[in-house]
């Protein structure tokens, strides 16, 4: 699972440059942050409130940056 997350994130990093669109790149950054947080940082094993806080923070940050930029 960790290897899969790593491979997916690596693909998304490459995609964000090749697409060349800031809003899409920010959305992909949000996806990468969520995947790395849940799997590599092991947030998914934490209490549901912590999981919700982390995912909520990434969603709000990604949404705010996409709207402002």
């Amino acid at each position, binding site marked *: 699972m960790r290897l899969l997350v790593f491979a997916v994130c690596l693909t998304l990093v490459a995609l964000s440059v090749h697409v060349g669109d*800031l809003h899409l790149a920010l959305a992909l950054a949000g996806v990468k942050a969520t995947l790395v947080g849940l799997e590599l940082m092991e947030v998914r094993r934490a209490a549901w409130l912590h999981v919700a806080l982390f995912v909520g923070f990434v969603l709000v940050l990604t949404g705010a940056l996409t709207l402002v930029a």
Partner: protein
Amino acid sequence: MLFWVVVATELLAFGVFFGFVAHVRASEPEVFEAGRALVNAHEGLVLAAVLLTSGWFVAEAVHACRRDQLRLARVHYTLALIAGGIFVGLKLHGYAALGPNARLGVSTYWDVFLLGTGFHFIHVLLGLAMLGRTAWRIGRRPFEDAEGAIAGTALFWHMCDLAWFFLFPLLYVA
């Protein structure tokens, strides 16, 4: 728990800065684009890939420690350190290649670029020092709280990863 508080605080600080960069980008598009055109997006891509690879090695090291495979954990930590060192080398090379006009006070783009990547760079150096110390101690000197020390160091390193995920599109992508 302490590491989570540190990481959450750092992520909030980075988040506020990202918001500022996004605001500058939207309010001064011409100035921002003129600066951004001088940086290589592929350099940012390689930096992100190197940091992500390092983060994966660290995650593997944590799991190897839990399985009591200390030798394997040290190998993974060493590989993470090498990848982190490559990030530092590439970033320093990138700074050197920017040219004389890329300095604070020249344009808003260079202000946010140098402050943002500089702040992140300091965290990477700190993370590398923590990784090096943890890697050296594994199997040599027992930790008072092994899980806290090993997973905590990994958390800090992943935080550097997360920060770069957002810094990269904001500063490098058109």
